[in-house]
């Protein structure tokens, strides 16, 4: 079973697709959670996910906007997609009928 932050990272990486790399995933998570995401948490979690076989990472080409430094690119593996689905389903099932779930539906625009 994934942890909360692991799920956030997998979701952000899946949403970004080909454009998934450290800084972009961080920005995506900060935008979604409205909380600061530290580089330390990001890269250590990324390593953990890679060790579990849920993502694959590799060093990309250096780019000028990054001062000539490369990106650490990320791709979610099939196993990662499955783990994220399992987590999402579990959260959805366990949330059914609780107060905040009902109010979330009520305030949906």
């Amino acid at each position, binding site marked *: 079973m994934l942890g909360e932050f692991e799920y956030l990272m997998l979701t952000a990486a899946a949403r970004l697709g080909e454009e998934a790399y*450290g800084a972009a995933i961080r920005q995506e998570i900060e935008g979604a959670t409205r909380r600061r995401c530290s580089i330390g*948490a990001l890269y250590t979690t990324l390593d953990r996910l890679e060790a579990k076989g849920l993502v694959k990472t590799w*060093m990309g080409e250096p780019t000028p906007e990054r001062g000539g*430094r*490369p990106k650490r690119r990320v791709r979610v593996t099939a196993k990662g997609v499955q783990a994220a689905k399992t987590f999402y389903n579990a959260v959805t099932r366990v949330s059914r009928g609780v107060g905040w779930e009902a109010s979330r539906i009520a305030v949906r625009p």
Partner: protein
Amino acid sequence: MGSESNRGPAMNRFCWWLLDILSRALEPDEREAVRGDFAESGETAGEALRDLLGLVVRRQAALWQDWRPWLTLVGLIVPLGMLLSIVSRVTADQNATYMWLYANNWDWALVKDAGFWHEFAASITFVLLSCLTLVCSSWTAGFVIGSISRRIIPAYGVLFCLMLVLGALFGAPRYLAYLVQFVHRPSSPDQEDPIFALAFYRAMFPLMVQAVLVAVPSLWGMRQGAGVGRFPALLRMVLWSVAISTLTGLAIREAGFLFFLKAYWLQPIWQGWLVRVLRIVVYWPVGYVVANAIWRRWHGNKPAYI
């Protein structure tokens, strides 16, 4: 004093410089990716430094899940830190006597005396050699610790410095006081009482000696030791053998362990050829650093760990 407008950029430059130093604790690929992320996201130097510190701490902490760093801590960092604290204190106290003699009791009339210069040259030689021995021993200790694992050096460096502080403040004074009691009980007042009645020689000078002649060379040695992995296995074995011989000789000769072991019968051996060789071998870091510098100048390559 600098104006407010000057202080900002200066602080910024300092933070980026610190960030550059700290980022060397990361693996090369990760360092590049993280620094690229900072450049892209436009973080301030302070934010980037805080973020990077968090990452380095997490990376270093993760390495302690293995048993080997704990073994290095217990088997090398604690005993070597304590040993060097003791040797540093002994060196500081010996040199304090000479410093007090010349700095606190200077008399210009002495410079006209030929006998004074003879004695002065002998004193200076003794002080310089004892300082060089301490620097080389500390460098060797750092080298051994650094050669164990390159990735965990920042944590080892912090722990070793912490051990030196504990050794200087608590370990060495207690050990040496006990050694004096064990070896002999002075019945007459100590001749060195006037020197150590001065707070500078009693408290400040040993700490200065420890910081300059032990902590700095040890950290330098750790950095050099981190690059030993690129050497052929045979050369590595030779370097480790020399380093271990040096540290063993230091422990037996300088720290007064012979008294506790009551191994007085070993005295003739320790005054024989073996110890004379060991006294020269202790300066091996000088040869290593010179050879390394020549190698790098000729081959124009930097070690892989930089």
